[in-house]
């Protein structure tokens, strides 16, 4: 990572102060960064002896010497990103785009503004809505297993989205954020979503960078807070280019009778590891977690999901589909935890892996911790090659083996993509998945 700004630890603290000054952050925001910074320094770098890190080797990373660019006053929207936005979804309520942490594009429809919806960059939100943001980040939870990365992301956060939907407001058109990284850069995407009572919205976070032989780095966090009766659909569209090594921690806290749908689509990056967590801590909360992973080349994916039921009368469902070609690797591990007293909790989990080549490898590790006795809980996992009878059927209709395989992979992944509710986003994401499938030689 020769092009990256590198620095030793004390200089790191200076950099954080510089970021704070640069963004004219109030004292509390700056203190939040510093706390994150000291946690980052204190937390040990995870090694493979830790269960959570057993399947992803990061020993080549010198985390303390990876730092972001200072956000600049002005950066042009790069042509390739403009093309992504232009060719992307239509009928969108708002778009934000960041390159290396600097806001380069912001478009919000008037109707969204009139409704009082806040959809803006992290730094602007801190200036304009300090109380709301402050309250949200004061309660931030540092997951011990991911602390090194989440603390790093919070300390260095430059670009980032804040979305706040006022009580009773339904945002009909979906919103989208693009986080882009230039070659050899380190980026720290940050998303904060606050849904007040009975509000409803769909947000897509898209992550893009050019393919490169140079390594790039990213560590992102998404905090999703669902007020009572609210409904959130959150799409994480991970399409980083080759060379990117990306770490992600997403945590949703669900209020009473709220409904969360998360759809994780992972196509990109050389190495990516994500924790996706739903905390069902109020009665009536429903969490649907969906995932689509499609790997090729030597891509490495590691997804960990957590369905945490702290109270009863809560429901969580999960479907994670992984297709792997060439020498790609995926580890999926999923925890369902039902805490004592969380009676009448329902939790379901299913992970399906389609292995398309003899050199691809999928691991699946379901894990249940159930401490209540009146619950419904099921889980299932499959790892299988392409079905010979399906191939025979398609080939008997004239399809060459590679076309037959393509169709099977599309069919395997499509049912999950079909659950993206906003048509415009669904079409954009499906097109990208199909594009990646179509480029495969099989």
């Amino acid at each position, binding site marked *: 990572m020769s092009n990256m700004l590198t620095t030793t630890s004390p200089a790191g603290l200076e950099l954080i102060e510089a970021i704070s000054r640069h963004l004219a952050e109030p004292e509390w925001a700056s203190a939040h960064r510093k706390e994150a910074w000291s946690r980052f320094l204190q937390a040990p770098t995870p090694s493979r002896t830790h269960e959570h890190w057993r399947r992803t080797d990061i020993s080549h990373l010198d985390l303390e010497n990876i730092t972001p660019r200072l956000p600049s006053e002005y950066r042009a929207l790069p042509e390739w990103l403009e093309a992504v936005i232009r060719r992307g979804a239509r009928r969108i309520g708002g778009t934000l785009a960041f390159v290396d942490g600097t806001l380069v594009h912001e478009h919000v429809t008037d109707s969204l503004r009139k409704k009082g919806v806040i959809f803006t960059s992290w730094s602007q939100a801190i200036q304009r809505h300090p109380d709301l943001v402050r309250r949200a980040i004061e309660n931030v939870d540092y997951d011990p297993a991911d602390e090194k990365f989440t603390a790093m992301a919070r300390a260095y956060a430059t670009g980032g989205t804040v979305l706040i939907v006022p009580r009773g407001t339904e945002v009909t058109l979906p919103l989208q954020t693009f986080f882009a990284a230039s070659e050899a850069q380190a980026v720290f995407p940050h998303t904060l979503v606050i849904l007040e009572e009975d509000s409803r919205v769909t947000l897509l976070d898209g992550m893009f960078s050019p393919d490169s032989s140079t390594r790039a780095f990213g560590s992102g966090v998404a905090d999703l807070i669902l007020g009572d009766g609210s409904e959130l659909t959150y799409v994480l569209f991970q399409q980083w280019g080759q060379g990117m090594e990306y770490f992600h921690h997403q945590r949703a806290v669900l209020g009473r009778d709220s409904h969360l749908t998360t759809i994780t689509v992972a196509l990109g990056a050389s190495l990516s590891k994500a924790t996706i967590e739903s905390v069902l801590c109020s009665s009536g909360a429903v969490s649907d977690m969906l995932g689509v992973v499609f790997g090729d080349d030597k891509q490495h994916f590691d997804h960990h999901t957590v369905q945490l039921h702290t109270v009863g009368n809560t429901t969580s469902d999960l479907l994670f589909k992984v297709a792997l070609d060439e020498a790609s690797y995926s580890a999926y591990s999923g925890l369902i935890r039902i805490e004592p007293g969380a009676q009448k909790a329902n939790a379901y989990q299913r992970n399906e892996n389609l292995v398309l080549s003899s050199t691809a490898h999928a691991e699946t590790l379901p894990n249940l911790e159930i401490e209540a006795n009146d619950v419904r809980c099921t889980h299932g996992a499959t790892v299988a090659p392409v079905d010979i009878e399906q191939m025979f059927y398609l*080939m*008997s*209709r004239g399809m060459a*083996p590679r076309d*037959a395989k393509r*169709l*099977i992979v599309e069919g395997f*992944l*499509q049912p999950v993509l079909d659950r993206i509710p906003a048509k415009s986003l669904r079409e954009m994401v499906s097109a990208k998945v199909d594009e990646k499938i179509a480029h495969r030689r099989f």
Partner: protein
Amino acid sequence: MSQLPLLEIRNLHVAVDGKEILKGVSLTINRGEIHALMGRNGSGKSTLAATLMGHPRYEVTKGEVLFEGRNLLEMEVDERARAGIFLAFQYPVAIPGVSVANFLRSALKSLRGEELSAREFRTALKEEFRALHMPDNFASRYVNEGFSGGEKKRLEIVQMGLIKPKLAILDETDSGLDIDGVRIVSENVNRIAGEETGVLLITHYQRILRYIRPHFVHVMVGGRIALSGDESLAHELEQRGYDWILQEIGAEEKTLQEVG
């Protein structure tokens, strides 16, 4: 028209997992001919169908198969399809997540070597659906997923109609269909086959033969064609069952039953 037969099977021996199932099948089918292949379960009828289509599990140990004079056994499954062979499956598999429309469009593109226009495809598909008494919304359902037995069989014939093969092998297309279903499917097979298509119709029952009238009837026993005749043979089987054939071929009976 070519002088060569459409399909010529000569002394075909086929094994599955090392066990010989077909033990010397010979059969010639010319254009426009309908051949009914009858016989008990396990006699090898479906093995013959799957072998002709090129299923990888079926190993040809002896014999040859020529399709329009070309060596069929050297061709891959998809090449056979492109050459004009169509198999209506006894148990069509589900392809989850792939819509009928997407599947059929891909198939036609592969078979014709070019993409159909959306309009042309829609029109053709609608016609076949109507002919088979299937609602248009089948186009958006996933291939064979959650279909009833009868719906699966009808979709096979929809495919036959769109593909218009030179040789159609129908593997127990009548099973899983009710009386109306058998009639509808049969009428469509007759329509699609017309004067040119060769048909190999595999069935247990005589009932479909009331609608699709065969030029030849063959009875398979223990991996061989034990008896061939005309339409009247099917009626005889209906009345007398299969046992008399076993007696008629006398000396072979014991061995055949053991392997059958």
